[in-house]
């Protein structure tokens, strides 16, 4: 699956996107894999919302390898 990073998360991870093969999983499983690739994301977990295919993912969402998942840190538009 493709993971997208925005705003300061790009600085933290040093990249804008990441290809992750983790099979079908839930948010917890996804975070576990993400933190293996980027442990420095751990401190942002509490403030980040997950979006699946350009929509906020509900807490019970399942994620698959074909999905585009974005980490949405607190927004500041307007």
């Amino acid at each position: 699956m493709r993971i997208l990073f925005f705003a300061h998360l790009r600085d933290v991870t040093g990249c804008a996107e990441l290809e992750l093969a983790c099979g079908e999983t839930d948010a917890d499983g996804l975070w576990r894999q993400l933190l293996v690739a980027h442990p420095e994301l751990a401190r942002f977990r509490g403030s980040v919302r997950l979006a699946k295919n350009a929509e906020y993912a509900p807490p019970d969402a399942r994620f698959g390898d074909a999905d585009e998942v974005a980490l949405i840190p607190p927004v500041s538009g307007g």
Partner: protein
Amino acid sequence: MHLEVRLTSDPIPAAWPVPAAARGAGAWIEFRGVVRGEENGQPIAALEYEAYAPMAEREMRRILDELAREHPCLAARVVHRVGLIPVGEAAIYVGVAGRHRAEALALLAAFMDRLKQDVPIWKRRALAAAALAGQPGTRPGGADFQTATARVFNPPTAVAAPEPRPSKVGGTAGGETCAPARAGMVPPAGSTSDRPASADEVRELVRSLCRPLEPERVPLPRALGRVLREPVRAPEDLPPFDRSAVDGFAVRLDDPAEQFQVVDEIRAGDWKPRSLHPGEAVRLATGGALPDDGLQVLLQEDTRLEGDRVMVLRRERARNIRFRGEDARAGGVLVEAGTVLGAGALGLLASAGCAEALVSRVPRAVHLVTGNEIVPPEQAPAPGQIRDSNSALVRGFLASWGVVPVQRRLPEDAAALATALEDPSLAETDLLLISGGASVGRHDFTRRALETAGFVILVSKTTARPGKPLIVAQRGATLAFGLPGNPLAHFVCLHLYVRAALEAWSGPAARNDFTLGTLAADLPAEAHDRETFWPARWQLAGGEVGLMPLHWRSSGDLTALAAANALLRLPAGAGTLGRGSRVEFLRTDLGP
């Protein structure tokens, strides 16, 4: 409702035709959110916005559709600009057409609130006014975007994959991709961490590595001394009604009578509007709400009360009224973003109904004290041992920033330090301080342990004294300092370098810099070929800052520190300075 929603990197036009779908509307309301000339108290030239474009557009449509059920409107047009937006230009345009103004205004207001909560658009960085003027070639998103001064060390840059593929993500340029493996940070290009760095270089490097930490909302008592991250506005006019500034009698301003009938009494907290007729007065306590417009409050001491009649002994022009909105108008900014919240600001926030303030998060800190010779303060040292003073020193220093470090004493043992550095909780630590010895062996021991644990060494020694064997290193979001073990070196390094990190994490308003003062006594010193930081005590005398240098013999000297509230900066080769000399100093008694 007809919707027109998009992101653009082009300027938003100054005038725009009303959409056809708005025909029949009784109200067409336009709003432009404009980039202001300052961000967090600093003058800026531009702001850069970034968006997750497909989702941002979708989310804006979803919000508008949802709000239209509650506030039925005919049409809405929303355009959010992304990329670099100069001061004075609009970042967002919203037009709403409604049959009546009420629903159009309500929809607009609700939409802006929701946009700021849910739409994935970010203010990425501010371009300092000075940076734009001094660096015409500066690119948005470039590594040199944030600071104006030339830097010896470049900040770590992103690792690009060998074959970056074009990003499908909308928004700003610079969609770097990275390999699935951990990207991490690369050593700053061009930096040679073995070259000694000057104190200024280290401070500049630290500032460039630390951005303001994400904000959090905390109850007011916990917000003291922290940097406010959003402007707080007056929810209503302050004062919210015309109120008396004195104890006295309210009479009509145009009533020249010398005797009045007292028809009512109003104390603070009462709300008794009434029309006052000629010849009538209302007794008012300080803070009491005026019952009517066009009144004047006569001072109680300028009158004589006889039963329900009041005689005027003296009448001046002053109305003695604090008028509604005199302090602040509803919606006006009471406390700007970027303000360090003192007791007065907290009182103002409370008066405006802001019970929780959005402030920078407090950094998480870990302090490791290594050494075989140190024993806890409560233990009597055996011959050759000393009590651990650095734990108390570091804890006290961090306390003024509201930071409570996790502290551990470790034996001087590579395995023990390696284990401590592998602790998973360190991944969530912003600041890692390691107190070690000052000897070359001890210094190398700390450095090797950090390198083995995956830290990138950015500085391994300085040209300053004390504090020559300083280590600055980084792993992920953790910034580590290896502090030479002597207490005076600790004190200097904490105030010069660790403070720079705490300031940058809090926000620009927290910055404390060197300023000029006058020596209150001779400073006999041998000329030294290195820049020297000297503990001193500053005090105000006759309107001038007088600096009393404190006596110290070695960087292990603690007695000087007990009295120190400043550090003098003596340039390399300065030698003895006489009383009255002007020297630069940094206050060490300041919090944020």
